[in-house]
């Protein structure tokens, strides 16, 4: 067996364990253990402990439990319910109005944190139950939650873009500006998709029946419940923009602010405070251990040259610059399915990005395409972190197959976005050029 086959063998082993129903975190870790032991000897097993210690010392992912806790509090004090009720009343006869609300909330969560787990789970707790309550199609609802929750990856601030900029020398401000463009564009794509589909199928995302629609007075009255959540968004975003808090710290403001709103509304009680703790713990532990497994798996995978193998395959594509670009996009996409973005940025990007730059592509544009592609990896079956995170907060009777099915239309939209970026690069580079004064 040649060394080149090892990365493939690792995937095969991972798939077997996953198919047997072994929890994802432990499938990843088990493969890392077995491969590091047989390739590098018993000493190398410590990679797993390093991955664990790394997660235990990672300040940035503290945002995960903070956002989850905030979401639980908002959900249990019915603040979210009021908010969605108001949206529902205001959207009147419009089908799919709540999906718009969900995309917007997702974009705001993304503007605070770049940690995808926080976005998807937060939105899964806030938006999903509300959409289901109003008889929105389960597939569409879950899809919109995953897609919008993942937006934080490209809407600034984004840790991955900072890393990408540092590795390639591309302007981080430019990436942020382009990410904002791409993020908003994707959000609009998602909204457009839901609106069109519900236009065709009246039962997909039903509006209020005509006789139950709210009068203008009722609508105004409902606006009251929008006030406090909006204040929360202002508090969280404001704490970052005013320099009071770093993005991670802002998540704590979100959690504290949610409790404050609950107090103001006189709905917060000890039962809610505590049960939110319990549920936050369970979800965070799941996320944390998946991260440990993913890091250990990614380490061994990079160590045996998997990343490099894939990059070289892309570079050796016949057919000139365009083929190299397309092939590397495809391979980024595939790598994104299995690895944490950080690992890909550090290992595959330094190989491919300079070559694309030499072939004449704008490095900033390549960086944007790359970051959107990484985002697709979160959503692509069979292995995508957003899918798993959503599974963590949906009722037990929702199978992963349903989640896979829900993700596919949105994955197609993301790929469409990449295709549009290929055809109209100037559209996505406009804002970065303004920001950088080019």
């Amino acid at each position, binding site marked *: 067996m040649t060394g080149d086959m090892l990365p493939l063998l690792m995937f095969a082993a991972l798939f077997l364990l996953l198919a047997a129903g072994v929890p994802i975190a432990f499938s990843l870790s088990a493969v890392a253990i077995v491969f590091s032991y047989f390739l590098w000897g018993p000493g190398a097993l*410590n990679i797993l402990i390093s991955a664990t210690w790394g997660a235990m010392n990672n300040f940035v992912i503290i945002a995960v439990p903070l956002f989850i806790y905030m979401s639980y509090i908002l959900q249990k004090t019915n603040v979210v319910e009021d908010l969605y009720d108001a949206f529902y009343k205001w959207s009147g006869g419009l089908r799919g109005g709540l999906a718009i609300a969900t995309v917007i909330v997702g974009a705001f969560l993304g503007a605070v944190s770049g940690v995808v787990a926080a976005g998807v789970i937060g939105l899964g707790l806030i938006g999903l139950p509300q959409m289901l309550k109003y008889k929105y199609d389960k597939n569409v609802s879950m899809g919109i939650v995953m897609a919008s929750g993942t937006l934080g990856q490209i809407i600034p601030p984004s840790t991955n873009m900072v890393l990408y900029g540092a590795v390639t020398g591309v302007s981080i401000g430019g990436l942020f500006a382009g990410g904002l463009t791409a993020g908003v564009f994707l959000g609009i794509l998602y909204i457009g998709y839901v609106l069109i589909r519900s236009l065709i199928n009246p039962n997909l995302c039903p509006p209020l029946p005509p006789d139950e629609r709210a009068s203008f007075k009722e609508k105004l009255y409902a606006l009251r419940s929008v006030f406090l959540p909006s204040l929360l968004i202002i508090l969280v975003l404001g704490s970052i923009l005013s320099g009071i808090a770093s993005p991670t710290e802002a998540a704590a403001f979100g959690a504290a602010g949610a409790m404050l709103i609950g107090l103001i509304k006189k709905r917060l009680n000890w039962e809610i405070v505590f049960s939110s703790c319990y549920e936050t713990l369970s979800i965070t532990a799941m996320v944390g251990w998946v991260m440990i497994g993913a890091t250990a798996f990614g380490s061994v995978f990079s160590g045996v040259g998997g990343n490099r193998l894939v990059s070289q395959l892309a570079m050796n594509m016949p057919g000139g610059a365009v083929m190299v670009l397309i092939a590397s996009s495809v391979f980024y996409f595939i790598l994104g399915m299995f690895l944490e973005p950080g690992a890909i940025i550090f290992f595959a990007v330094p190989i491919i990005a300079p070559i694309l730059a030499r072939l004449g592509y704008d490095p900033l544009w390549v960086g944007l395409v790359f970051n959107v592609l990484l985002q697709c990896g979160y959503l692509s079956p069979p292995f995508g972190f957003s899918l798993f995170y959503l599974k963590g907060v949906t009722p037990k009777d929702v199978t992963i197959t349903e989640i896979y099915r829900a993700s596919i239309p949105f994955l197609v939209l993301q790929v469409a976005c990449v295709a549009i970026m290929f055809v109209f690069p100037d559209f996505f580079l406009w804002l970065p050029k303004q920001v950088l004064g080019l």
Partner: protein
Amino acid sequence: AKVKWRMVTHAMPGTEQQRIAEEFGKTVETLSGGEFVIEVFPAGVLFPVFETFDNLRNGVVQASMVYGAYWPGKDPGFILTTRPGDPLGTYAEGAYVTEKLFPYFEKLYAKHGIKYLGHAMVSPLYEQLMSVVPIRNLEEIKGKKIRTSGFGARFYNALGATTVSLPAPEIYTALQTNNIDAAEWTFWDENMRMGFHEVVKYVIDPAFQNGTCEYFPLTVNPAAWDSLPQNYKDIVFAALDRARYMSAMVYVHEIKAREKWKEMEGIEIITWSPEDQKKAREIGLKLVYDECMKTPEGKEYLDIYRSALWELGYKDEAKFLGYEEKK
């Protein structure tokens, strides 16, 4: 290949530092006719950088080039990797002092089961401090919120600033939103890679938090090292010397980057008055002196350091550190 090693660095891929480390690996491979291969991994690919110490010891990797200033948590002796207030300004001076200090670091690493083979790179020039508010003198730094770490944090505290810890990817946003007033990272070129020129308005040059210090120590797992045949060991030292030559060239790289910073509109380079520079250095050197006096090893370190300063003509600083002229 007969022997295969893995080596990790603290450098980001694409940086000059990482290139030096990769050249080191290639040189070993070439000189051994392809029989001794060292695969070089950038920061965080195999494991978080801060795990290097344990993993080198455990043999997860056989070699590393990772900044010694990360390890005061393992042994307080590593705090002396950096020297706030240090007056050395050139690569050659830095290399000279680092080689004089070889026995100190060899012993220190050996205490923890790691073999130290010497520096692959000394920091090329004075460090900088980047800020969003003007800090034109010692007085203005008081009360500023500065992102820094290690000995540098103690130094800025001593200057009257508040210090905070921030993970690297969050520094950019923190500067952008004025969450912090200033930050130190590395030098001109790498600071630009992290995009800091997009969010700061001022650069204080020189700053005094580190001094010219050892930046890229080559450390190896003793068992792996001992099992190498002598000719491979010789090859490693030859490759190390080549890395040292290349690291001297980093100086040029940094100077070019400095010129780019200077040309940027909206960036002002601030240099403190000679009086304030002297005061800042003395505050830093006082910290170094106090730290050295804590242990017998520290006193040995101090002896080596201040003699070298004296020899190189930094007589005031040497005397400040208690150097006594030999009659």
